[in-house]
């Protein structure tokens, strides 16, 4: 678990870096997501983009009943922190939360949430999208689809 709220030493009071990176077994419910948005948004931020990944009922032509996520938690959090570093460097987006839930989730439950708050919306969109795309490509997390006709660890 890597949480930090560090005052950046730039002299810009409202530009303090705020970062929450976490692999968790707790539900990513409404309260959690709103708290993240509140924590990320500082008075200098005008645009907040939130991505929520949710278990959906169909994949590869199957009716999905549930998903089970596994992670290599220490490395996953380290890779997520690396993504946050990149996002800060490329878009100046230093107010970022990336949480991925592991364990079993049913349809409609949230498996991943990324929140990025920036002064302007373009950076928030770009940074949020890069973060989730890169998370899917590089962070050691796995997904098992549980359908009526069986279970399978699947890619993507």
């Amino acid at each position, binding site marked *: 678990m890597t949480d930090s709220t560090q005052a950046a030493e730039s002299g810009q009071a409202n530009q303090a870096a705020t970062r929450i990176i976490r692999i968790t077994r707790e539900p990513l419910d409404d309260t959690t997501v709103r708290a993240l948005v509140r924590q990320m948004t500082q008075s200098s931020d005008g645009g907040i983009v939130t991505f929520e990944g949710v278990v959906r009922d169909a994949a590869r032509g199957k009716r999905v009943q549930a998903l089970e996520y*596994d*992670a290599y938690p220490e490395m*996953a959090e380290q890779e997520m922190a690396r993504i946050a570093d990149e996002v800060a460097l490329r878009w100046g987006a230093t107010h970022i939360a990336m949480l991925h839930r592991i364990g079993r989730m049913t349809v409609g439950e949230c498996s991943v949430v990324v929140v990025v708050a920036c002064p302007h919306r373009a950076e928030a969109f770009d940074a949020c999208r890069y973060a989730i795309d890169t998370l899917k490509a590089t962070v*050691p997390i796995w997904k098992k689809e549980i359908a009526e006709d069986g279970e399978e*660890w699947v890619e993507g």
Partner: protein
Amino acid sequence: MQVKIRYFAALRETAGRSDDTLELPAGATVANAREQMAATHPALARLLPVCAVAVNRAYVAADATLTEGDELVFIPPLGGG
């Protein structure tokens, strides 16, 4: 030398365990470890070739050399998100 193995996802279920210890000759590479694991656990042999590899929580290439006490993890195709 000994390296520590941790299993996740399909590998964990197939191996039936979460961790293991691998005895390897000094100077062994990731590729050597992979071959030895496939020989010892035939059930894993099908999965290992499609796995990426991390040593001490960083992705490495197959020719990376292992050191006593390393944490070696085979990373099946990812499914996060």
